[in-house]
């Protein structure tokens, strides 16, 4: 049974009613129990828990520190292309936007990689839009062969691929996969994704499973916050993470918390997620999923990022550019979204230290997955 079948059992309205029916007594019971069950989690994402953010944060903090230690991993995204065939209504790379399109050559990608390496990064996230005719598997192989000597961990956040193609990526040294479902509400999904390959909700939802089957060591998921009711999205993410943990028990699961940011096209998020909402979601998920990695990108402001560090975050990007070639050639092409925290990686590392954590640049070794080569 794939996660698609499990998600089909989730009736959006029933879950909403259930969440809104929770009382402060339910929340207190959830906070008092030794292990957080799915039922406890429902209480923790309910409006009734909004008065309990401090105790939730305290618990999330100590659970994270015990499991992950006083360390925060750092990584950088490397955008190789903003070509895209999808018309996602919220995205700067939307096929209908007349923006500057650019796909880096392997040389240019290596130049960006060298730059990131000099800044200290050893973990990189390769990002592209969905344009399989331009960003072909052999193109990606060429790029990966240049990046592999520079980084100890390479993850990809490109378009969803088949298990077979993912095996090919793994053979080129990719150890992690990131794919956001955007929204777990299938009806809403079709509105936000009016065309292109991405319109296939099920194909996208099952992407982490194909990645797990291909043996990726890290699998990252997320909902794009602002598209639908965050409480129900959080519930679905909790289910999704639990499904992946059970079925791909050798992979480390991570969750990101991307809130919609201004992008080309001027899309206004229909369901605003406040800072308080974000904190509630993050801490509730931490209590339900103590071993899942939590990632925070530069979509959020410097001030908020600094405050979120001790609440359960385990890895952060820093100094990010979201346009291809952005590190070494500036803004020649359109960016995917506006970066809110534009501090340098060194400055972010310094803040992490000040907060009482060690910034970790390397927490993986390419030798784990490199077969005799």
């Amino acid at each position, binding site marked *: 049974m794939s996660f698609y079948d499990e998600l089909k059992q989730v009736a959006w309205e029933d879950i909403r009613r259930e969440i809104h029916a929770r009382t402060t007594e339910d929340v207190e019971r959830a906070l008092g129990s030794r292990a957080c069950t799915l039922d406890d989690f429902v209480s923790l994402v309910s409006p009734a828990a909004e008065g309990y953010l401090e105790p939730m944060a305290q618990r999330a903090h100590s659970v994270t520190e015990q499991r992950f230690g006083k360390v925060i991993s750092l990584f950088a995204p490397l955008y190789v292309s903003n070509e895209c065939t999808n018309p996602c209504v919220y995205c700067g790379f939307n096929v209908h936007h007349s923006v500057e399109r650019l796909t880096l050559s392997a040389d240019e990608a290596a130049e960006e990689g060298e730059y990131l390496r000099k800044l200290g990064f050893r973990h990189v996230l390769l990002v592209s839009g969905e344009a399989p005719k331009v960003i072909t598997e052999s193109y990606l192989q060429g790029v990966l062969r240049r990046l592999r000597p520079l980084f100890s961990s390479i993850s990809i956040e490109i378009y969803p691929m088949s298990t077979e193609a993912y095996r090919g990526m793994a053979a080129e040294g990719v150890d992690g996969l990131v794919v956001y479902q955007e929204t777990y509400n299938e009806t809403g999904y079709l509105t936000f994704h009016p065309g292109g390959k991405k319109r296939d909700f099920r194909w996208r939802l099952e992407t982490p499973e194909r990645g797990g089957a291909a043996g990726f060591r890290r699998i990252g998921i997320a909902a794009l916050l602002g598209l639908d009711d965050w409480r129900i999205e959080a519930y679905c993410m909790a289910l999704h993470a639990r499904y992946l943990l059970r079925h791909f*028990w*050798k992979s480390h699961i991570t969750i990101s918390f991307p809130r919609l940011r201004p992008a080309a096209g001027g899309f206004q998020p229909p369901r605003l997620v406040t800072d308080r909402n974000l904190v509630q979601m993050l801490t509730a998920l931490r209590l339900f999923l103590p071993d899942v990695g939590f990632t925070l990108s530069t979509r959020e402001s410097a001030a908020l990022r600094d405050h979120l560090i001790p609440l359960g975050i385990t890895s952060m990007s820093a100094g990010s550019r979201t346009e291809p070639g952005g590190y070494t050639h500036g803004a020649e092409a359109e960016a995917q979204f506006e970066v809110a925290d534009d501090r340098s990686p060194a400055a972010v590392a310094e803040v992490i230290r000040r907060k009482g954590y060690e910034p970790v640049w390397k*927490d993986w070794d390419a030798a784990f997955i490199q077969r005799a080569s």
Partner: protein
Amino acid sequence: MDKPLVIAGRTFKSRLLLGTGKFASPQEMVRAIEASGAEIVTVALRRVELDNPEDSILSHIDPGRYLLLPNTSGARDAEEAVRLARLARAAGCEPWVKLEVTPDPQYLLPDPVETLKAAQILVKEGFVVLPYINADPILAKRLEDIGTATVMPLGAPIGSNRGLKTRDSIEIIIEMATVPVVVDAGLGAPSHAAEAMELGADAVLVNTAIAVAGDPEAMAQAFKKGVEAGREGYLAGLGHSQKIASASSPLTGFLGS
């Protein structure tokens, strides 16, 4: 007078081994190591840049004072663990390795089959192998037969701070062992370390409980004392706890004296 701890021919005064992960800063780590009195410190190979002498962990640990014991944390099978160990040796590390094969990234429980396989290969290649295992007495004997330098059974899952949950099995391992038994993982308080030492463990390894303590340096010292107290209690000969009083002999009293 206690005999020193001997592992693979090397002598150590301290019976507390320290892990170096999870500390808030290298400085805090160094202070904790010093306070603990440890002579063996483990370091995760995946955190280290072997080709970079300025590496953030390695540059803080004086190899003249401490035996740096690289571990294969993150390896999911024997092949990966062996590859990592070979890389470390090729980069100039001593041929000692703490063998960790933990395919599940949640509880980080050791895979007995892959650990045994990897130990076979590494021992043959001349490594001093210290394998992290579940508290399985037969597996401990199998590893000893292969030629590992120690066995390192867990008290509870890594980082759980839950104490000696595997106490009964660890007692059997200690009773049957001919190599040092180092209780590794799950010890969350100095009293847990003392308990392991009272059972007759040769040493304990601690990381999380010290690294994430409010004051890691003070906690390191507390663990040092816990280990010493437990060891002294063991050497002094703890009285056996008995369920029945032994003063009278209700069943055999008729035999007279």
